[in-house]
């Protein structure tokens, strides 16, 4: 006996509906991913539609699309790695995963690497916008790009105190693919910026391969050169740290230097006791925010965000807690922020004294705000 016609048609409708629903995300009409044109801070009609299209075409010729990246082989970047990191997320039968950037990074850093992914607006500090080509925590000198190892380290350790998590459990090959892709997005972003500069100056855009390659190499060579620009901490100036007295003496010298408003000037932002309360005006911004005009928030993807000087008593060191990391931080500054490169002003032994003081800070009571260092945890022990 057959089921009632009514019931059969209802069951049929439910089954069909379910099938349709399950198919939609896969083959529905979501368009292929595209790079967003960097119009931040520019009014939408500053350039004509033809000019914008020309920029898009040139960028596509030089860099491909998010699903199918390209890079001139002359840059030394590995296109195979880019292909693993780019595109939609899927796994090959052999277990090789693709689309790593979209799986792990894009929701904060955006498909374009503009630091304006869907979750970006909730974060402080904002995710890095790679397009400026500026990265905060590097082992290289002032103004230099990070090395491959610097970016790997950031991926592995995360950046404590920010929303950047650790990816230490990813296989080495995936970390390398992601680092290559970050470089690629950054180079692409800087080339895009220089194309717009040509337009602003009403010059011709580089349209031949050679002209475009020159443009790309201008940026990618900075990345290549970074590998030879690593700051080497001066070990000869390293104060002996074997005995606690020598270390204590170094810490005291560091404390005096920290408060010295003429040379090191740490106190100006980090405050007299390192609580990060030295800048009373609260008018510090990083390079990604300082150019934002509060009168025209619609021109930027994210609202203007203030920068707080680091509270050095929390025991959180965003760029790494090894003495060498902090030495380099003081020597070369934090790129894109008001933290200056003190390598020219301070002698190596002075930097080491500061390093020892900064590493000691979280474990000594704060004279002006003692409650800050009292642990507020309710110990159930």
């Amino acid at each position: 006996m057959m089921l009632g016609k009514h019931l059969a048609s209802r069951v049929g409708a439910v089954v069909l509906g379910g099938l349709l629903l399950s198919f939609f995300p896969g083959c529905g009409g979501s368009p292929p991913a595209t790079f967003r044109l960097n119009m931040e801070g520019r009014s939408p009609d500053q350039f004509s539609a033809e000019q914008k299209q020309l920029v898009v075409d040139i960028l596509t010729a030089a860099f491909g699309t998010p699903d199918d990246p390209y890079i001139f082989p002359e840059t030394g970047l590995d296109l195979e790695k880019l292909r693993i990191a780019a595109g939609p997320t899927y796994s090959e039968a052999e277990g090789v995963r693709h689309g790593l950037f979209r799986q792990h990074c894009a929701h904060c850093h955006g498909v374009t690497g503009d630091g304006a992914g869907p979750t970006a607006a909730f974060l402080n500090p904002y995710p890095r916008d790679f397009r400026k080509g500026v990265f905060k925590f590097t082992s290289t000198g002032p103004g230099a790009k990070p090395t491959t190892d610097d970016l790997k380290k950031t991926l592995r350790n995360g950046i404590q105190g920010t929303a950047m998590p650790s990816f230490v459990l990813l296989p080495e090959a995936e970390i390398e693919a992601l680092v290559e892709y970050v470089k690629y997005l950054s180079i692409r972003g800087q080339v895009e910026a220089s194309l717009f500069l040509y337009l602003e100056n009403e010059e011709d855009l580089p349209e031949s391969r050679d002209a475009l390659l020159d443009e790309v190499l201008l940026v990618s060579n900075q990345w290549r050169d970074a590998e030879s620009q690593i700051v080497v901490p001066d070990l000869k100036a390293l104060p002996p740290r074997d005995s606690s007295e020598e270390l204590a003496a170094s810490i005291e010298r560091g404390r005096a230097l920290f408060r010295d408003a003429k040379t090191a000037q740490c106190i100006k932002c980090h405050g007299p006791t390192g609580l990060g309360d030295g800048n009373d005006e609260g008018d510090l911004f990083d390079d990604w925010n300082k150019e934002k005009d509060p009168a025209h928030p619609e021109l930027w993807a994210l609202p203007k965000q203030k920068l707080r000087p680091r509270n050095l008593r929390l025991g959180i060191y965003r760029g790494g807690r090894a003495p060498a990391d902090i030495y380099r931080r003081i020597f070369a500054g934090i790129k894109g922020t008001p933290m200056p490169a003190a390598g020219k002003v301070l002698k190596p032994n002075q930097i080491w004294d500061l390093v020892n003081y900064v590493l000691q800070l979280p474990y000594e009571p704060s004279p002006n705000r003692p409650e800050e260092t009292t642990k507020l945890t309710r110990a159930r022990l």
Partner: protein
Amino acid sequence: MPVEFGPDEFKTNERRTIVTRFWIFLFLLVPILGVGVFLWAPYAGVYLPQDVSTHGHKIDHLFTFILLLTGAVFIATEVVLVVFMWRYDRERNQDPVKFTHGSHNLEMVWTIIPAATLLFIAIYQMNAWAEVKIDRPDIPPTLKVTARQFEWRLQYPGPDGVLDTRDDIHTVNDLHIPVNEQILIHLESDDVLHSFFLPNLRIKQDAVPGSTIPVWFRATEIGAFDLVCAELCGWGHYKMKGRLTIESREDFENWLEQKRQEQEAVQ
């Protein structure tokens, strides 16, 4: 006379019987599939993960005991449901519904039996609970685990053996412990509720902001296992994953020393 409803084609008794029977069989599938999945799971390797702890068998025993108990009640309830649907369908029961004020004895029975069962479970599990959550070993902490959106920050005491001093060794997501030793973890949270979950050690403990919560266990096998967050803690909860490496005391110390040297690097 029962009230008729629905489209005309439903109104013949024969068709309605078929429809009713269809739903009865559908309901019958619930206990059959429900029990079947549990019988099949251990053979398909999707049952409890490998237990590498000293106390885990007690947790597993409680799990199995409660599963059997609830399973028996589940099967009985489902059978009653299906039998009642079969016996008391409208076609063969044309009499009007009889209302009753209930049975005092029946109510006593279905109150006292579950209450006694719950009381029994409460007493029966006390030793296991005490071992995992109350009888804290009197040793210094092996490490401090700080959960934060969305990673596990780990802090081992340095050479001085004391936590929260200058020589502490900091790592992230990569939890190493020595095998066959009593481990004591101080668990904290930086931001929201998280849950520190080591499936292979049968350890699950909420991390509560503002509290330091002790967690202890003893691992029995060398290997790499999962550390996951078991409390929805935000949009990145899915990626809050770590790795537990259980290793010999010697390997553990070598690893710790290597981390210490990386952290003390001056070059």
